[in-house]
């Protein structure tokens, strides 16, 4: 018996190209590819004159993030990096050019060295071409740095809310400063913590990317398998939900009358059944504090290949954030409104 996982892929060297062809073949009404690198997935019905271009991206392996959020009302384009590796400046710039409608472009991505460097270089390249491009870095993972160094935190599933808000703000015609400010408000109001119950298998090699014994869990693990804050015996749904919520509730200081949006996100192989059990507890805890849930999403929105595990994200709402969240969008992975 071998321990080599044969994944449903073809040649590892064309993995991302195959993925792009697959996504476009499944959603030809929503997506197409633009630019010479072949790595920029662009909304058929998104970019337009006078609108701030929204580009989201990062490494692959987090499907439906990031290209699944491309579509009218959300992102205009997404450059696809290799598995767990930022796209290159040229790939990012392809997405940026496609998204550009003359009002500037906002790049949104999680806070990782590679992404910061590559998106930063792409933004400089675009500026040289005369397109104002800015970077916005998502930092929602409470497990990745203490609150007084919140700016160093990783971006994980909270991307979902920050992207949604920025996409809505841009779709409503706000200018680049205002869209960036909206993203900043969303990011400041969003906290996530995750748990992993297994490593993920890298599809190219068929091997797990780290070691996590069956029956153990790691609290606070990142979506690329970056170690978390604590490892121990795996626990049940309620206990895990409580652990994930604790730092989130503390930092967001949620109390009676507050409103939140909830995302219970699966990392890849945790069943929807389990995710609903987590949501059940999240809803009960919030209800006990008289915090109202405006909307919930339960499912796989930002995965880590086939990792077993989940994350809980809360975004504390105000009237604007709520309106941006409810603004219609139509993308492969998310549909809101009529």
């Amino acid at each position, binding site marked *: 018996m071998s321990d080599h996982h044969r994944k449903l892929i073809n040649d590892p060297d064309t993995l991302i190209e195959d993925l792009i062809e697959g996504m476009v073949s499944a959603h030809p009404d929503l997506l197409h590819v633009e630019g010479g690198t072949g790595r920029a997935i662009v909304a058929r019905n998104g970019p337009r004159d006078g609108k701030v271009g929204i580009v989201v991206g990062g490494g692959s392996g987090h499907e439906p993030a990031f290209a699944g959020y491309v579509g009218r009302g959300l992102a205009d384009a997404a450059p696809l990096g*290799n598995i767990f590796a930022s796209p290159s400046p040229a790939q990012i710039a392809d997405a940026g050019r496609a998204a550009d409608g003359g009002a500037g472009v906002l790049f949104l991505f999680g806070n990782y060295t*590679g992404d910061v460097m590559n998106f930063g270089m792409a933004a400089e390249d675009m500026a040289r071409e005369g397109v104002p491009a800015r970077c916005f870095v998502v930092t929602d993972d409470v497990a990745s740095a203490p609150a007084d160094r919140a700016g160093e935190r990783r971006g994980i599933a909270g991307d979902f809310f920050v992207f949604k808000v920025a996409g809505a703000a841009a779709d409503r015609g706000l200018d680049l400063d205002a869209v960036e400010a909206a993203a900043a408000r969303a990011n400041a109001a969003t906290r996530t913590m995750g748990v992993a119950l297994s490593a993920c298998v890298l599809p190219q090699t068929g091997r797990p990317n780290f070691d996590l014994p069956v029956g153990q869990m790691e609290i606070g693990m*990142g979506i690329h398998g970056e170690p978390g804050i604590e490892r121990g015996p795996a626990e049940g749904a309620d206990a895990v939900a409580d652990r994930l919520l604790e730092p989130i509730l503390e930092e967001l200081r949620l109390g009676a009358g507050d409103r939140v949006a909830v995302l219970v996100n699966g990392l890849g192989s945790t069943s929807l059944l389990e995710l609903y059990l987590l949501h059940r507890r999240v809803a009960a805890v919030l209800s006990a504090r008289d915090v109202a849930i405006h909307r919930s999403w339960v499912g796989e929105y930002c995965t880590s290949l086939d990792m077993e595990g989940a994350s809980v994200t809360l975004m504390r709402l105000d009237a604007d954030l709520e309106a941006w969240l409810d603004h219609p969008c139509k993308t492969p992975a998310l549909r809101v409104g009529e």
Partner: protein
Amino acid sequence: MATLKNAGGGAIVRRMADTIVENRGYLSEIDGKIGDGDHGNNMAKGFGRARDRIADTDTLSGAMHTLADVLMGEIGGSMGPLYGMMFDDMASAVETLERIDRAAFGRMLKAGQEGVMAIGEAKRGDKSLLDALIPAVEAFEADPGELSSALAAMKAAAERGRDETRDMVSRIGRSSRLGERSRGVLDAGATSCCMILSVLADETRARLA
């Protein structure tokens, strides 16, 4: 005094790529302990792809430019910009030369180090590839002998630098959020950087004339 011909240096870069591709699994495994386990995959993809576009007969500077273009243009990740800038700046430092002497080699190394530091903003002791690169460049400079001797000093210093990352606490990149938990394992980037410098030293010494 023995120098290196720029022409034909493509072979050196191709040997580098061979080594990286061979160590794909090992480098990913190290990265898996405190990172995301893909360092070898990313590196092998970039170096492997560049190797296919480089001929043994290319100049060293030309080959390094090609490698930099592939890394920065097509590979992305952390290594795209970091090693991309390193090889780009190394190449630029010697591209006008027919032969590379000790002084030019030293300028080339220094340019590479500065390129990495400019884009990545890391310092020595942060537990990164700079902990192999900086001491290697210093040792090269400090060596009193000829190019061959300086290269040997560089290689030895890179190995020591790589080994010293084991006891460091990471302050940069993915592993920097781990605090004390990042101690006790080699840094993946320092390991690959040491491989690159070792091949550079060995292959250059074999070609000195």
